[in-house]
């Protein structure tokens, strides 16, 4: 009889204990929103990944200071993928196990590809500040992917649209310097022109970087009666080509990318640079959110922010804002990201159907009176 009494007490105690712990555990789940931050935080690409951690911390701090998102505290779970796809896949599984709502990252395109499948299966969103591979959004395979940086082919797209719509040119010569950057840009531009159908690629060719003379290829451009040249490459060759074209009295328009949007180009090409168009990253120096973000970074970490910091800061702002509006479930966040414009450090952005941020990325500049002026 006595032993029954003891047993009953023990059972009651255990039940109470379980109930209490269960209750507190439930309480904590209720009040915390876990966000993964994944990218290269060590190794040779660490400098690309660490600024994103800082950005996420700053934004999380800002929200937590005001009571979190809808009363729930934001907790960051930072994981290092060293920019390697194998590691990224493991990390993705770990983050899923940790119960994150969304991931800010990854940093490298290859690692992002490797992780996205895992996230998709578990209904987790990923928003990257730096993965620029076009297929991440354009393939349509990853509806859970968003990014706050323009895709690799955005510059070529912008150059071609600008040439065909704004400048109204139809005969276009496309040149490149045979490097990965220049050739990629030129091939995209060629494909876009051909796909569009209005324009015609009259010359597509590579030039030798550092050659003493480009008059042969320029003679060919003149012969082809091109209205405009789209050049993928850097400023030393661009200034030579423009210089020699103007020397020959050719008025062919010259359009290039961020490799040429450099003040050295204006210095070396001299008067020939006048009127040259170049696409380049939008000027964010006057953006109040960006200025505030940089100031807070300096206050907390004592240095200027690193690469992709502003994009990551924008990603965190957009994501937290979407969770605030749409709740913590996948569809809610995704719809909020697509339907609401947020004021961020890369300007006011909203995501399109494929996950690219609208209003982010490049602008067209033109050399006017010896300086690059942004065209609106």
């Amino acid at each position: 009889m006595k032993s029954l009494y003891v047993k009953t007490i023990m059972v009651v105690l255990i039940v109470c204990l379980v109930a209490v712990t269960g209750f507190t555990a439930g309480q904590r789940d209720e009040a915390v929103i876990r966000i993964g931050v994944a990218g290269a935080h060590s190794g040779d690409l660490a400098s690309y990944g660490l600024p994103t951690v800082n950005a996420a911390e700053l934004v999380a701090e800002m929200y937590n200071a005001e009571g979190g998102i809808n009363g729930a505290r934001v907790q960051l779970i930072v994981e290092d993928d060293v920019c390697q796809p194998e590691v990224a896949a493991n990390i993705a599984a770990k983050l899923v196990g940790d119960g994150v709502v969304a991931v800010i990252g990854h940093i490298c395109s290859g690692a992002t590809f490797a992780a996205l499948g895992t996230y998709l299966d578990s209904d987790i969103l990923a928003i990257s500040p730096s993965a620029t591979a076009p297929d991440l959004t354009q393939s349509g395979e990853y509806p859970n992917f968003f990014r706050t940086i323009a895709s690799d082919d955005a510059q070529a797209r912008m150059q071609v649209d600008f040439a065909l719509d704004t400048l109204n040119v139809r005969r276009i010569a496309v040149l490149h310097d045979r490097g990965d950057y220049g050739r990629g840009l030129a091939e995209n531009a060629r494909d876009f022109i051909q796909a569009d159908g209005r324009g015609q690629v009259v010359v597509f060719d590579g030039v030798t970087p550092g050659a003493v003379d480009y008059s042969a290829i320029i003679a060919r451009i003149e012969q082809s009666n091109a209205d405009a040249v789209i050049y993928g490459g850097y400023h030393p060759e661009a200034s030579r080509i423009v210089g020699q074209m103007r020397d020959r009295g050719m008025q062919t328009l010259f359009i290039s990318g961020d490799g040429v949007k450099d003040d050295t180009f204006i210095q070396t090409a001299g008067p020939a640079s006048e009127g040259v168009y170049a696409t380049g990253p939008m000027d964010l120096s006057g953006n109040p959110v960006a200025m505030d973000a940089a100031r807070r970074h300096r206050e907390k970490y004592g240095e200027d922010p690193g690469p992709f910091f502003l994009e990551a800061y924008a990603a965190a702002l957009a994501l937290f804002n979407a969770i605030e509006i749409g709740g913590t479930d996948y569809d809610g966040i995704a719809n909020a990201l697509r339907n609401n414009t947020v004021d961020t450090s890369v300007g006011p952005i909203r995501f399109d159907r494929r996950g690219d941020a609208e209003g982010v990325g490049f602008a067209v500049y033109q050399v006017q009176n010896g300086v690059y002026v942004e065209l609106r």
Partner: protein
Amino acid sequence: MNYFLGLFVSGLTRGSIYALLALGYTMVYGIIELINFAHGEIYMIGAFTALILASVLSIAGLDALSILVIASLVAMIYSAAYGYTMEKIAYKPVRHSQRLSALISAIGMSLFLQNYVRLAQTSNFLPFPALIPRFTFLDLLPFRASSAQFVIFVTTAVVMILLTFLIKFTRIGKSMRAASQDKTMAMLLGVNVNRVISVTFLIGSATAALGGVLISSFTGQINFFIGFMAGIKAFVAAVLGGIGSIPGAVLGSFVLGWTESFGAGYISSDYEDVFAFAILVLILIFKPSGLLGRPENKKV
């Protein structure tokens, strides 16, 4: 036809540019059988000297033509001093060791001078002023040619003729030919071989500097790496024409220039280097000593 003429002139320009550099390569090789890889760097130093001088002189308010003349002369003297010193420091101590030692020494010198200029000046591209004034008589020609192209072409021709004259008809030229045939025998006959080699480097470096000033004034920009880029092509041109031969260097340069220019104009400029090296391989297969090179008679 106009297009053809345009490409012809473009090839001529390229050829003259390569020739101004190839002359120095071939001259040094002719005397001491050393491929002076630092020749391109001397050209680059000449261009930098001229740029610094031109900036100072244009502040002083001189006109373009006198700036060109003064800058060229000073750059030639300065570069000649570099060439002379380079030979004394890097090549003379290894002259009697294997040929490979001198070659490595030359490559080392080239890297040293490149990085020295990079550190002492800048790694950025600097704009080079157009020092060559516009000649109005060129507008009368049936094709478009800039005055820089014209000046480079004329200079190449004059330098080639002067060098040929120097080697064929002067006392020092005779000593050079003697030293190139057999150094020991020349020394026994009272030729100061050390002096001959020094003079060769002085002249070779001066032509490189002249090339540096004219070519940079045509291309409009310089940085520490231009010597390497131009040097490689000039070296190919010298080999193509028969290394050691002065007219050969010029002919080789023009063949190379036209190959590249017509290849780029009619087929694809993407394959420019492929055409250049394909013609080199072809010529070396059928004429191993180059277009105008002397066949090598090995002494037994």
